[in-house]
């Protein structure tokens, strides 16, 4: 009895507040926009019985998905989210790897402090970390003031409200997610392997490419997914840092819902966003599984 309650309470919580809402999104994505409240049709009440239920299912259709596939705004938004996510993941890797490597090769007594300094920004508000860049990148911002003072540029650059600002903010906010798994992989690396490679005639750079990188592979893959997956659905960064030309699917969904109040289309956008994410999520899970098996 006690075991039943132990299982049932979290189970029903998740059913009611995770699975059921998700099914509602699925259902509304198949419904039509209506000028009512709630603004979608068809609706179904428990009291109406089976006949009504059948009619209800007959009224559901793929219209919103057809609409999405025909309007190229949505295509462009999906493609551009993917592109932004891929590019920023690559940049995060290029920035994050040397830092993870530096920590893994630092004196042992330094490592806990360095790691804490990597994790600390993660506990600070995401919004504030993005906001911090607004003052730096704006037209009258510090970066422009600095570059003008150096004489590198003649007039201020426009960085805020462009895709460049979006990349900077994604790299900045997701950097810890890249560094930590790579560090974990590098930390396990046995130094004697590198020494063996050098004894066998590898240069240090060859040893790095032939030994360090392959052994850090799982960490690199995990880090890339941990940046890529949330970056695709990002809303705050494109809203604050991006310009009118920045299309990201999370922002489109947000605007579809809050500005256009088109719930069925917003739900359809959500479903497709999820379909796009399923592949990287499955690949990520498989990578984690492989890593666990390799360790166990």
């Amino acid at each position: 009895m006690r075991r039943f309650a132990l299982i049932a309470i979290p189970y029903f919580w998740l059913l009611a507040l995770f699975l059921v809402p998700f099914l509602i999104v699925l259902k509304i994505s198949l419904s039509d926009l209506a000028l009512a409240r709630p603004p979608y049709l068809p609706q179904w009440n428990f009291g109406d019985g089976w006949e009504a239920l059948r009619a209800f299912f007959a009224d559901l259709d793929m219209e919103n998905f057809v609409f999405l596939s025909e309007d190229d705004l949505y295509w462009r938004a999906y493609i551009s989210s993917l592109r932004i996510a891929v590019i920023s993941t690559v940049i995060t890797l290029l920035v994050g790897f040397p830092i993870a490597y530096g920590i893994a090769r630092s004196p042992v007594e330094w490592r806990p402090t360095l790691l804490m300094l990597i994790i600390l920004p993660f506990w600070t508000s995401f919004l504030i970390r993005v906001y911090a860049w607004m003052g730096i990148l704006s037209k009258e911002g510090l970066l422009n003031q600095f570059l003008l003072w150096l004489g590198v540029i003649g007039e201020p650059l426009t960085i805020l409200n462009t895709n460049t600002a979006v990349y900077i903010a994604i790299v900045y906010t997701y950097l810890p997610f890249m560094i930590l798994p790579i560090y974990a992989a590098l930390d396990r690396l046995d130094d004697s392997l590198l020494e063996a490679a050098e004894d066998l005639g590898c240069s240090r750079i060859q040893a790095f490419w032939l030994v360090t990188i392959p052994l850090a592979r799982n960490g690199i893959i995990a880090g890339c997914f941990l940046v890529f997956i949330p970056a695709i659905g990002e809303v705050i960064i494109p809203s604050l840092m991006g310009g009118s030309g920045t299309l990201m699917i999370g922002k489109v969904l947000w605007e579809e819902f809050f500005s256009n109040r088109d719930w069925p289309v917003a739900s359809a956008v959500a479903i497709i966003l999820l379909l796009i994410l399923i592949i990287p999520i499955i690949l990520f899970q498989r990578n984690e599984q492989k890593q666990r098996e390799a360790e166990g």
Partner: protein
Amino acid sequence: MRRFSWFNATSLTLGFAFLYLPMIILVIYSFNSSKLVTVWAGFSTKWYGELLQNEDMLNAAWVTLKVAVFSSTLATVLGTMAAYVLVRAGRFTGRTLFSGMIYAPLVMPEVITGLSLLLLFIGIGLDRGILTIVLAHTTFAMCYVSVVVSSRLTSFDRSLEEAALDLGCSPFEAFRLVTLPIIAPAVISGWLLAFTLSLDDLVIASFTTGPSATTLPIKIFSAVRLGVSPEINALSSIMIGIVTIGVITASLVSKRAAVARARDEQAAAGA
């Protein structure tokens, strides 16, 4: 002994400069007396003063704090239960679905979680406000808590629990007297994680809130959409300060605990 190589020292310096300079600049400019945030006009604390006069902000801070305390506590209880079920309950019908529902919210984009919960709340006619945000935050935070707690549960020696049961403890007593003290550090870090996630959340709160409950991130977001403001700088600096003190304290406490544990183990081994 290992020393910093030239290359590693450079990459670490540049890396940490990249991570910390923006926040340091933000804090410095919160003491700027000019209304124009990017022009330095002398030291002043007037924006902190104005912040304390801003009733709206204080209200939002209070709402956020209430939501975070309630939701993280509830999430810790539910998440610990869920972790216990995942690791200890063995097989039961729907176990795969259960573990799926624990892991899915971790990778679910916030916009989808927010949208789906809002549609649920409207569907069942629940008025949106503090209660709905608490429900929403509890749901996604409990999944994080359960991941943290279950990794601790998997790693600890089960025979300790069995010994307690053999010695006449009821399962509940065994949990309270043996399991809970051992997993306590994970439960505490789970709570802290849930608390921070709730404090920090903008997207899900924006979907699930009503006119009566504006949280601090929502307030900040609508202010900064219009551009940089010195008052927001002051507010951000306060939040950065609290987090820094909190994290440093926590790491000192856990370091001291680790030292004490090592000493105990040494003493036990010596005796």
